[in-house]
């Protein structure tokens, strides 16, 4: 008989629209992070490092990159005879075919998958956070408290608590109440979107609430369990945990990796983060160059100067080019004599020679001021930027652009230049 104590269900179907063009063509969990990784590598590595070897990955929005990245799970040792990683897209049914309409609805539609493994517990994970966490310790806690549901929480500063779902607990860590984005928070324990359910409790809750539109864990399933007076506990996590939901937080989390001893340290021997590495050769730093306070992925060639930056794999940085405070993802080419300041440049972008990015006075973005802010230049994947143009701050470029798109060879701050189908 097939039996797995705990099966993880990783929600990776979301778009993450606040990352702008970075998620135009890929789901947020597949966005590159930290030079060579993708965001989903962190929960997947946590799973295998915690001894969870059965993971269902729920995909929906732009799954191609995610599917090819995960494959059969080789990089995470999740290629197993029994269990391993399974990608679970929505599928047609004889009645009531639908997309995944909510987090819990997605899990509900995959009850058969979980049932195959006769699990005792189900671990629900979000695919878009940067953290290292031992789910086994959380499971110990769950068992020790004889909980039906355990919710991972993290203490946040009281002033920020109103941005989160807040858990109010008693001395035993039992959840007595919770509130979603409260104006006057009664606690600072924010839900991290990580849950352990007893399988039969989850199953019952999902089946009972199946008709609820947009069935969601935070809005429906947890309240339902609470109302039934099921034992809900809060597991307090005090390590590094970052939601990289906005361009600013994404940029900042990347930049934190280049501190001398970063709070989130990728160089620790235990708890490795695994990823699919296609590019193997070492990076080449040429003669007349300068690289300082940066991390750089495999196979990258640096002929220019790089400061305070996170550079992916297989990138080329041309002669006399200066890159500062920027994130450059895999296989992007930056020409000669460029200046790049505080830019996020996605994968496979080609930047011509003598291009200046992130120059001039700051101005609010004209189309999406809440997305493109903090002075960051954002360039979507496979974009082409012609030689000898200058680009201002809070700008976004996506698609193949040519000189005509840059009047006076200049894209002013706050402009959006979107030529690919967004």
């Amino acid at each position, binding site marked *: 008989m097939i039996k797995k104590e705990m099966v993880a269900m990783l929600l990776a179907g979301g778009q993450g629209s606040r990352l702008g063009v970075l998620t135009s063509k890929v789901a947020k969990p597949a966005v590159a992070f930290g*030079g*060579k990784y993708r965001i989903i590598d962190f929960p997947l590595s946590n799973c295998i490092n915690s001894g969870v070897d059965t993971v269902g990955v729920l995909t929906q929005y732009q799954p191609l990159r995610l599917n090819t990245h995960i494959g059969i799970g080789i990089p995470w040792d999740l290629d197993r005879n029994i269990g391993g990683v399974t990608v679970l897209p929505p599928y047609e049914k004889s009645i009531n075919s639908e997309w995944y309409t909510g987090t819990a609805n997605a899990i509900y539609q995959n009850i058969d998958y979980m049932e195959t493994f006769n699990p005792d517990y189900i671990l629900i994970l979000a695919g878009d956070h940067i953290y290292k966490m031992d789910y086994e310790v959380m499971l110990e806690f769950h068992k020790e408290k004889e909980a039906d549901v355990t919710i991972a929480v993290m203490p946040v500063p009281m002033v920020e608590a109103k941005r989160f779902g807040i858990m109010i607990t008693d001395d035993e860590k039992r959840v007595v109440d919770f509130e979603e984005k409260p104006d006057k928070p009664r606690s600072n324990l924010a839900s991290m979107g990580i849950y352990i359910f007893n399988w039969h409790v989850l199953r019952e809750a999902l089946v009972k609430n199946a008709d609820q539109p947009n069935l969601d864990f935070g809005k429906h399933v947890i309240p339902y369990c609470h109302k039934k007076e099921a034992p809900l506990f809060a597991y307090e996590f005090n390590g590094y945990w970052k939601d990289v939901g906005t361009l600013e937080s994404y940029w900042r989390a990347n930049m934190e990796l280049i501190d001398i001893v970063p709070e989130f340290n990728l160089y620790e021997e235990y708890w490795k983060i695994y990823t699919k590495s296609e590019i193997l050769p*070492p*990076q080449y*730093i040429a003669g007349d160059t300068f690289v300082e306070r940066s991390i750089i992925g495999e196979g990258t060639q640096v002929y220019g100067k790089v400061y305070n930056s996170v550079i992916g794999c297989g990138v080329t940085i041309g002669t006399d080019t200066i890159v500062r405070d920027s994130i450059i993802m895999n296989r992007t080419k930056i020409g000669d004599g460029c200046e790049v300041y505080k830019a996020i440049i996605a994968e496979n972008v080609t930047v011509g020679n003598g291009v200046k990015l992130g120059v001039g006075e700051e101005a609010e973005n004209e189309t999406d001021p809440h997305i493109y802010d903090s002075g960051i230049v954002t360039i979507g994947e496979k974009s082409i930027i012609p030689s000898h143009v200058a680009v201002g701050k809070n700008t976004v470029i996506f698609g193949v652009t040519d000189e005509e798109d840059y009047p006076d060879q200049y894209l002013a701050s706050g402009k959006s230049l979107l030529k690919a189908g967004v």
Partner: protein
Amino acid sequence: MMKAIGIILAGGNNFRMRELSQKRAVCAMPIAGSYRSIDFALSNMSNSQIQKVVVFTQYNARSLNEHLSSSKWWDFGRKQGGLVVFTPAVTSDNNFWYRGTADAIAQNLAFLKNSHEPYVLISSGDCVYKMDFNKLLDYHVARKADITVVCKEMGVDCNVDRYGILKMDAEDWIEEFEEKPAIARTNMVSCGIYVLRRRQLIELIEKSAEEDRFDFVKDILIRYRGSKRILGYRMNEYWSNIATVEDYYNTNMDFLNKETSDYFFRQHPDIYSKVDDLPPAKYNYDARVRNSLIASGSIINGTVEDSVIFRKSFVGNNCYIKDSIILNDVYIGDNSHIERCIVESRDTIRANSYHKGEDGIKIVIEGNDRFVI
């Protein structure tokens, strides 16, 4: 579908590698930051669609066996074929080590006999090169040779006395074959890559075994050069054999050359190796790196010039590394000076050390304990 079995000869020791061979077979020597020498032969076979590969190991094979612990990196983790490692084994009719390359094959002849592929491709595991073996095999078949030997014309200033030296006629049939002659008469060297029919190989190996002859080059190629049709196949691209410390040093330094590194790393097909899951290399304040290869997992604080830094190395503050090769997982304490050296893997160099290769390349093995926080 490729019609050959691959054999990689990876068993040899080489005293000319000095202290570097104490830790590992030459075939497991780290190359170009992220690879080991056997990766080149393995990748070539994989890229030539060879499905079944046998590696013969003997000398100091621990490191090599670890490297080959999974065959999936070279895409040999398959039901059809796959990668097999043969180490010497005591059997009911044999209790010898491999007494030579031919003996290694002889002791495992059952494997060859039970295969069905019509050809066998033999490569030594200590050469750095790229080759499409399909073209080699086509050439071998088209010219109706008994054995085809890949050869390369070395530069006039190259000291070739450590190679097998060939002399070919106008049609590239091999007339003379000398192993490591005192005075070489040509600059045409054997690259240690051969192709022949499987039945032919079995016949030659059985005959040699009966006569207590054990070496593939001496007892088969040289002995039969008159009676068998042995053909040369000229190789014009990069080829380097890791036979001496100087070869090893120069081969690694060749990868600082854009042409060489582009040829191996950025032109189809790729070279594969075991993936190590290390984070990106990190450059801290005051890192000064010039004309160097830096592999992943390394952390650089000091100055590195014209050097190859392998995986997971740590270069301390105010260090000066010049014209050197720093092998995997080396820790170099602050204020150290390292010039024209090869620092052995997993070594710990104390702060304020000074190492310089005065005449020739210095091999640094300090062997200090490392205190990990």
